[in-house]
């Protein structure tokens, strides 16, 4: 069974999972090359977690095929399990146990003898900055520390493929960037990482390729650059002092950028996409021109920013409708 040489970490075709009336995953086709970070981007309920759980052998697919390093996730589940690790959305560590005990337990379950298990636990705690907290129960850990321990537990087995399901959801900005650094270190060592996220900036920073999924299927796939050029490289957000000036502001933005500007639900806000392809300075030049023209038109601006497109805007661009947060994901 091991004979099949493959450079693909994950290969799915027509993968389906149904919960009651909901087709959580509905014909998912994914191809993840080995040795990279692959981002799966989508809103809540898009089927990200369900897809990852099937690939990690936790859920049985209802249709289609999925292979991990050439092994079928149903028929060769054990072979898959010996090469993958999963860090789920909900911390999969034991809160009653200490950091050391959690890792020693897993090391023993992976076949290390007790002294070797202790050794390895110590090394991991050190590498993840948890040495001081090693002998404390996990329930006393902060969210960021818990997540780090969780990832440490996942790489204990030196997996070839690491699934990170929304690894930074619920974390403060500093902890987020620590997780990002960890992901970079893991992949630099040759482990493939499949990361799900709701944040475009996260996928953009980490992933070599991104699949955007919605209603259980892939609606766009490519490098972050390819995706961004298809949806514009950013968005200008303007907040006015006087709501009466909004129609005028919309005209100015539309004229300056050559694309329609949107009036937001907030009566003071206007947004518009910038392509940034017109000049070597990219989106920033577009933005500064907009600001200058608004000032020239006598429009008072209280807040002005240039941001990456949000997931909502990505969806708007790809599907002509905003991302709908669904609730099924929690049940999955």
């Amino acid at each position, binding site marked *: 069974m091991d004979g099949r040489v493959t450079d693909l970490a994950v290969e799915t075709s027509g993968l389906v999972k149904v919960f009651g009336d909901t087709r959580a995953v509905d014909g998912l086709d994914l191809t993840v090359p080995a040795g990279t970070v692959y981002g799966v981007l989508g809103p809540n309920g898009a089927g990200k977690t369900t897809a990852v759980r099937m690939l990690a052998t936790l859920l049985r697919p209802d249709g289609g095929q999925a292979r991990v390093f050439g092994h079928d996730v149903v028929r060769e589940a054990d072979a898959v399990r010996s090469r993958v690790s999963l860090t789920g959305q*909900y911390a*999969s560590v034991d809160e009653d146990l200490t950091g050391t005990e959690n890792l020693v337990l897993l090391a023993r*379950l992976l076949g290390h*003898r007790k002294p070797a298990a202790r050794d390895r636990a110590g090394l991991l705690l050190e*590498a993840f900055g948890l040495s*001081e907290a090693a002998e404390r129960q996990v329930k006393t850990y*902060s969210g960021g520390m818990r997540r780090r321990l969780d990832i440490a537990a996942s790489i204990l087995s*030196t997996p070839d493929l690491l699934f990170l399901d929304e690894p930074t959801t619920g974390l403060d900005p500093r902890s987020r960037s620590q997780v990002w650094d960890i992901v970079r*270190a893991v992949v630099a*060592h040759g482990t493939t990482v499949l990361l799900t996220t709701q944040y475009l900036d996260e996928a953009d920073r980490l992933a070599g390729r991104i699949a955007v999924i919605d209603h259980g299927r892939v609606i766009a796939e490519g490098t972050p650059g390819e995706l961004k050029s298809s949806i514009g490289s950013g968005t200008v957000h303007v907040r006015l002092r006087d709501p009466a000036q909004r129609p005028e502001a919309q005209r100015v933005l539309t004229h300056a950028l050559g694309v329609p500007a949107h009036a937001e639900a907030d009566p003071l806000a206007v947004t518009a996409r910038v392509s940034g392809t017109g000049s070597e300075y990219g989106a920033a030049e577009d933005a500064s021109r907009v600001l200058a023209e608004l000032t020239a038109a006598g429009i008072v601006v209280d807040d002005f920013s240039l941001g990456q497109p949000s997931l909502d805007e990505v969806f708007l661009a790809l599907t002509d409708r905003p991302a709908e947060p669904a609730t099924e994901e929690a049940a999955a």
Partner: protein
Amino acid sequence: MSTQTTAQTTTQTRVEPEAGQSAAVTYAPVAENIGAVLTRGDRPKRPSPVAASTAFGWRAMLKIKHVPEQLFDVTAFPIMMVLMFTYLFGGALAGSTEEYLQFLLPGILVTSVIMTTMYTGVAVNTDIAKGIFDRFRTLPVWRPAAMVGYLLGDVLRYVLASITMIVVGLIMGFRPAGGVVGVVAGAGLLVAFSFAFSWIWTMFGLLLRSEKSVMGVSMMVLFPLTFLSNVFVDPATMPGWLQVFVDASPVTHLVSAVRGLMAGAPATGEVAWVLVAGAVIMAVFGTLTMRLYNRK
């Protein structure tokens, strides 16, 4: 509002106080350290079923070490049961409490330990809710090991409960004719049967949605099963239809077997009945448990 701030407000909903934890404040992941861990992974051979089960059993012990309050139900509860029923029924049913205790102790021991088995289901269910199950289920180990681990921890609890009750009984005047050997054999049979019986609760722990429903179902089964037996009174005084149920109950046979062993007059037939019943329960509910564990 910029999208950057939108993203941040959602991620900041759970900002944790990390002040004072200098390691967390200054921690910056070093690629070489993390790489070193990954390189050192000379993957060992997968553990044997026994080694994997022992590791899970060790986890159960650690949980007892960190949350010793959970031993309340295998120490205080059994003591309460012995005292309550001996002094409540003793005078009325057997003329004296001391005489009643000779009859009651093996039975109340069985009742208490069998009732304790339901906590296995609660523990399984709690772990599922917390997500640690996902971790265990993605490990390439012998599949039943996680379940056996729970039960190994529970065996310790059954032993503790048995020792507590026997000691209290001895203080109150329980004088078993079977001596040390008889008492140990009786308690051993009880613990062995309880290990098998607990597989019913691992199944319910996996099947039911919440801890409360596991408790509910357990009580529904355990109350009638333990009270409608020969624990408190001789079944000969019961109406005929009830005797049918009582005689068929595994608890009745278990109590007879334990009583016999402790009284120094082993009822071989009853002991055999209990062992076979235990094996059947384990085969049926162990299979169902593993099927649910693999499907979940």
